[in-house]
């Protein structure tokens, strides 16, 4: 029985690996830009003027309030009508980035608001501008507090990249689908695909937990 699994892996590993590579690439790009944009949005929401803050809030509500798959369909099938053509990869990754940004903006906002206001006041009293205070005092602490939520978000994101197969991006799920239907080995192939996702998620969780521990501020660790 094990032989089936071994055969699949031995014969199909280039396809699976290629799919995994694209999955990781999409996840990495979406995480990077999602984190950057989400963090900026969070600060605009907390410290920004009314108008930019309202725009950001609107963006977050729209993105969070609509299914990601619908958004990706709009980008991939809808926008070409207006002359904007996207590759499956491009449409999918745009969807991942804006979703990641919207969710992370809210996580990071929570992290920022959990930092005692007194530190901002103290930074300003030293003569720091608001921007200097955010950059040097608030951001380094907010990032630390946001890591657990980010870990969660990254896990979701990695798994959501499997949706990209629907518009035909050649990622891990798509690779699995192709292999499974050609060989009529649905259970075995999808199980292997699931285990690959699981392995990546576990490694990522482990890395982020290590980062969290490494960045922990001495004296503020959890008491056990």
């Amino acid at each position: 029985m094990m032989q089936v699994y071994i055969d699949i892996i031995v014969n199909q590993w280039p396809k699976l690996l290629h799919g995994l590579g694209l999955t990781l690439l999409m996840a990495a790009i979406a995480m990077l830009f999602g984190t950057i944009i989400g963090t900026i949005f969070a600060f605009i929401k907390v410290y920004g003027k009314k108008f930019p803050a309202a725009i950001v809030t609107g963006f977050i509500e729209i993105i969070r309030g609509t299914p990601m798959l619908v958004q990706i369909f709009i980008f991939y099938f809808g926008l070409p009508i207006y002359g904007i053509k996207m590759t499956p990869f491009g449409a999918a990754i745009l969807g991942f980035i804006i979703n990641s940004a919207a969710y992370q903006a809210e996580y990071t906002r929570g992290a920022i608001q959990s930092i005692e206001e007194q530190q901002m006041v103290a930074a300003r009293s030293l003569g720091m501008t608001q921007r200097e205070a955010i950059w040097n005092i608030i951001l380094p602490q907010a990032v630390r507090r946001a890591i657990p939520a980010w870990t969660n978000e990254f896990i979701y994101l990695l798994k959501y990249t499997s949706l990209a197969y629907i518009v035909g991006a050649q990622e891990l799920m798509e690779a699995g689908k192709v292999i499974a239907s050609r060989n009529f080995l649905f259970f075995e192939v999808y199980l292997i695909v699931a285990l690959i996702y699981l392995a990546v998620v576990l490694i990522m969780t482990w890395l982020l937990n290590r980062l969290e521990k490494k960045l922990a501020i001495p004296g503020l660790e959890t008491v056990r």
Partner: protein
Amino acid sequence: MNDKKQSPLLRVKNLRKSFGENVVLKDVSFIMNEGDTKVIIGPSGTGKSTLLTCINQLVRPDSGEIYLKDECITSAENMNRFRQRIGFVFQDFGLFNHLTAKKNIMVGLTKVKKMHKKEAEEIAVEELERVGLMKQADQYPAQLSGGQKQRVGIARALAMQPEIILFDEPTSALDPELIGEVLSVMEDLAENRMTMLIVTHEMGFARTVSDEIIFMEDGVIVEEGSPDKMFKKPDHGRTREFLFKLTELYGEGDE
């Protein structure tokens, strides 16, 4: 002690501030000369802390003027330039939790004064020595006692070489046995003629260290005078009543 004829270091003129319906400061005026240690006392909720935060414009007054030397703070476009010259010590310390004691002191020097890291570190070490915390240089705020935290707060203010330091109830959040170490640092500063404006309930300190005591109530300065006058023969009944109550509560301190 205040007989210098030069222009005052700090002039507060007709300061007013309300939060909604609540008038917190009603026409407050006073001056401070270089080297003065002034203590502001008064019941809580009478605008003492608001007065301090108005001086460095963390809170904008509704009207009135504040001058640092000959420059008007209240009409300044760029307040950050003035804030570097006005130190502030907070009741709850306001330390940056992600930075060691030393880096708490350095950050203002490197980021605001754009000083080189090495030079900033030298100053930080000097100031830590001054407040007796050399051993704690590399500890984080969460690893320090309240008294140590407040001494770092004072060292951080001192490192900027301010012309005046404002203290907002610097010992009110401390356990009784930790108050002494903070007060003794402040006494040293007073001896070295650091200009200090201090809101406190420490009557012993007010009596023995300050040059002048300001008694505030309901947003106005009721009376101002030397500790001797204020404690022994104040002009106003309210001053006497208040000081009597406080002295009973906190003792006369180390006379």
